[in-house]
């Protein structure tokens, strides 16, 4: 007879509903799976058969055909094991059809019949749309984020018994909420007024930030404190972040539902695919998507291969990675706050005091690895120097994260009032009408434009940054000379990275 079971598969970071049809008919005993399965799905035949037999359930010694519909969609991953097993049991009449009515199944089976967690439960369960969902016990907490009626089971036998009403569904373990540890505080940072301010402005206006400085100047310390300054994720953002992390099989930051902005810091050996996402069979999200709504920190920026960095350009502009392959494509969300850190020269010692032996040519070659268009995307670029020893030992601690974060929140609210998430998204025409420049401020900019230190594109960028700085003061007030001077100071290091004209 024929059984139809609902399940889902993963496509990028989205779930797709899949109908698992199982037919058990007369003929030579066999087990076939059709409907564009990938290797993991095709292998599920052996797992399913072993699991059913280990669970002391009957296996039909007949001809079994499994069809995964829609047949044009590629199915990947091991989450289809459980629905196939249930389908076989229903088709073999070991389980009544009524027991699986309007129920979705996702889960991987072990040969002993145990149910194993799979990646991407959040998007898959979200796509199912059935009245109730059965998932491996370890995935219950994740699945509950998107579906009200979720049951978990630790093995196939348990699931079948519970479906038949012979026993109760086991209690899902409480989601382990990691205590709010690990977000380092700005108060640990002594001195560094420029770096601190750059961090605050970056958080308030979502301006990409480039830190240039020798080792030990606090680049990484600063960057790791940025997520703490960002406002907590809103519900829809948190769901999206959770969905992406779930799809990538990466633990969600902060427990079951991501409440804090993620922080991703890939090593500079990263490939293009690992950074922007993609892959051949299973289009998976890259670091850029994992950092969605959070911070992507690229330490040693100049050590990343140039093509990898240039692949970031379009996603940074659009907030979406459009991965296209011959077999199909996905759009992966990728709205990140990019923080780059690099040394001023290859030996790392280079300050401007002639401390190193790197010649101009060597420095130029090192800094040229950053293409102009990528450099253009950094609204803020600051040169850091190692902190003073007196500051390190005796200096007063700086403002704690909580105080700065409060200012950032107020500035973000001002941006929301303008119809954007943050000032970095303000359009040029809005700037012209919504926040005109006073005469002295324009005169200040004119000097920079004339000296070649500022381009037309740079003008709008520094304008937005000045607006953010003004918002941190008082959102209702116009940009003053003080704000603009600070905005210009916060991008001054950019100048040294531009190729010599």
């Amino acid at each position: 007879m024929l059984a139809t079971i609902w399940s889902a598969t993963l496509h990028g970071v989205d779930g797709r509903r899949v109908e698992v049809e199982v037919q058990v008919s007369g003929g030579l005993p066999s087990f076939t799976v059709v409907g564009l399965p990938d290797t993991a799905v095709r292998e599920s035949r052996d797992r399913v058969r072993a699991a059913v037999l280990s669970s002391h359930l009957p296996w039909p010694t007949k001809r079994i055909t499994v069809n995964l519909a829609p047949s044009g969609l590629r199915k990947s991953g091991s989450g289809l094991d459980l629905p196939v097993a249930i389908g076989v049991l229903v088709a073999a009449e070991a389980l009544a059809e009524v027991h699986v009515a309007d129920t979705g199944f996702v889960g991987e089976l072990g040969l002993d019949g145990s149910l194993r967690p799979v990646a991407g439960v959040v998007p898959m369960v979200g796509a199912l749309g059935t009245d109730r969902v059965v998932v491996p016990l370890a995935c219950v907490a994740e699945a509950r984020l998107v579906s009200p009626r979720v049951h978990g089971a630790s093995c196939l036998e348990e699931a079948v018994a519970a479906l038949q009403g012979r026993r109760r569904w086991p209690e899902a373990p409480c989601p382990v909420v990691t205590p709010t540890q690990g977000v380092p505080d700005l108060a640990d940072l002594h001195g560094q007024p420029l770096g601190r301010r750059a961090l605050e402005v970056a958080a308030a206006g979502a301006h990409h930030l480039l830190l240039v400085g020798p080792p030990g100047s606090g680049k990484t310390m600063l960057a790791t404190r940025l997520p703490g300054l960002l406002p907590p994720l809103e519900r829809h953002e948190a769901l999206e972040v959770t969905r992406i992390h779930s799809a990538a099989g990466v633990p969600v930051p902060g427990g079951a539902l991501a409440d804090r902005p993620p922080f991703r810091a890939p090593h500079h050996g990263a490939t293009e695919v690992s950074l922007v996402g993609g892959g051949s069979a299973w289009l998976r999200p890259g670091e850029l998507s994992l950092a969605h709504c959070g911070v992507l920190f690229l330490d040693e920026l100049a050590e990343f291969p140039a093509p990898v960095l240039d692949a970031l350009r379009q996603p940074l502009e659009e907030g979406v990675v459009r991965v296209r392959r011959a077999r199909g494509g996905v759009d992966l969300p990728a709205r990140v706050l990019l923080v780059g850190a690099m040394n001023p020269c290859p030996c790392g010692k280079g300050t401007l005091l002639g401390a190193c032996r790197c010649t101009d040519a060597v420095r130029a070659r090192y800094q040229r690895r950053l293409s102009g268009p990528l450099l253009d995307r950094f609204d803020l670029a600051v040169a850091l120097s190692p902190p003073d020893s007196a500051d390190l030992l005796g200096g007063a601690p700086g403002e704690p994260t909580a105080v700065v974060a409060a200012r950032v929140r107020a500035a973000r609210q001002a941006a929301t009032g303008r119809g954007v998430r943050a000032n970095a998204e303000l359009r040029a025409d809005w700037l012209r009408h919504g926040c005109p420049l006073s005469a002295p401020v324009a005169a200040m900019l004119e000097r920079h434009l004339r000296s070649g230190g500022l381009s037309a594109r740079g003008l709008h960028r520094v304008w937005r940054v000045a607006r953010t700085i003004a918002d941190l003061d008082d959102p209702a007030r116009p940009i003053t000379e003080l704000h603009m001077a600070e905005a210009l100071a916060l991008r001054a290091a950019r100048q040294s990275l531009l190729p010599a004209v």
Partner: protein
Amino acid sequence: MTAGVPSDGDGVDEDDDEACAAALASLAMSPARLRRMLAGRSAYQAWRQAVSGCHAEDSDGRVAEAARLISPAEMIARCRRRGLHVAVLGHPSYPPSLSDDEEAPAVLFVDGAPAVLDHWPRVAMVGTRSASIIGREVASEMAGALATAGVVVVSGLAPGIDSAALGGAVEAAQAPCVAVLGTAHGGLASAEQQRLAHCIAGRGCVVSELPPGTPGARWRFAVRNRVMAALAQIVVVVECHDQGGALHTVRAARRRHVPVAAVPGSVRASASAGTNQLLADGAACVRHGDDVLALLERVADWHRAPARPGATAQHVPDGLLDPLCAKVLGALDHQAVGVDALVLRSGESLAQVALALERLAAGGLARSEAGFWLRTPHRAERVDGG
């Protein structure tokens, strides 16, 4: 000239010494060997002997082998096309300032006015390629002051101190200066150097020991340093690392009893390690152009022309400085300072400091370099001195 070797009709006449010398110079020989090849005979004779393989200096025949591939006529045509003057040691047109030197180049290719090589006095300014911003600035200001006082600045046109010095001299005054190349003419690495070379050739001269089109070699850079030392009345080392290349020039200068002066630097700065060592070893200490001029008066019995008034930068009355700007200017010293340090030193907020810096920059009192800030030199002295 006695025709010791018969002409074989390759278009070279007996009196075509320049062409033959240029052709010999294009062979990859050390300057010393080239001198020996040309010693005691005319360039034409030397060339003929070299081609025929019977030159006493060419025992293994390698020079003959290389020489047969070269046409003197084409070599001299190439020089003429670039407008180069070919000076052969021993000829009347060879610059007298060099002709007495033991290691004088046997052949010199000069772009510009060769007479500039005999202008007096001449100061060589050398230093590292990986110079600090301050070092470049000191080199440029010092060269500017020297050029304004009528001194011919001699340098090497390498990136770093050399280019900064020549650039400063070219910018400051119409006074001639001299660039001594380690490569052939036209073999410069960057467009910026080419531009500077062109500029120098217009008002002074650019000299090389190699005819155009000859490939360069690393050792040539060390070897050309002796030419700078031979030309100079004083050698000034602006910045130099420990064991840096500028020390070649220093050694060459010491062999010739040319006084060596060095610019002091921070004892922590690697770029000043070599110069500080020179000072410790007894080199004269020079801080700015005036020190070099004073030294020149002592060692070369030369007296500068009275300074022309109005040569320094425009003067902004100190009264125009608001207290904030004055405070930030006070915190700026002649080192490049990060905004961080300025905030800490002045005790003002970042925004206040940034605004003050903008105003100082607009008034020409300070300038920024790669996110670091410096005082503009002339002005700073006025503010200090009142």
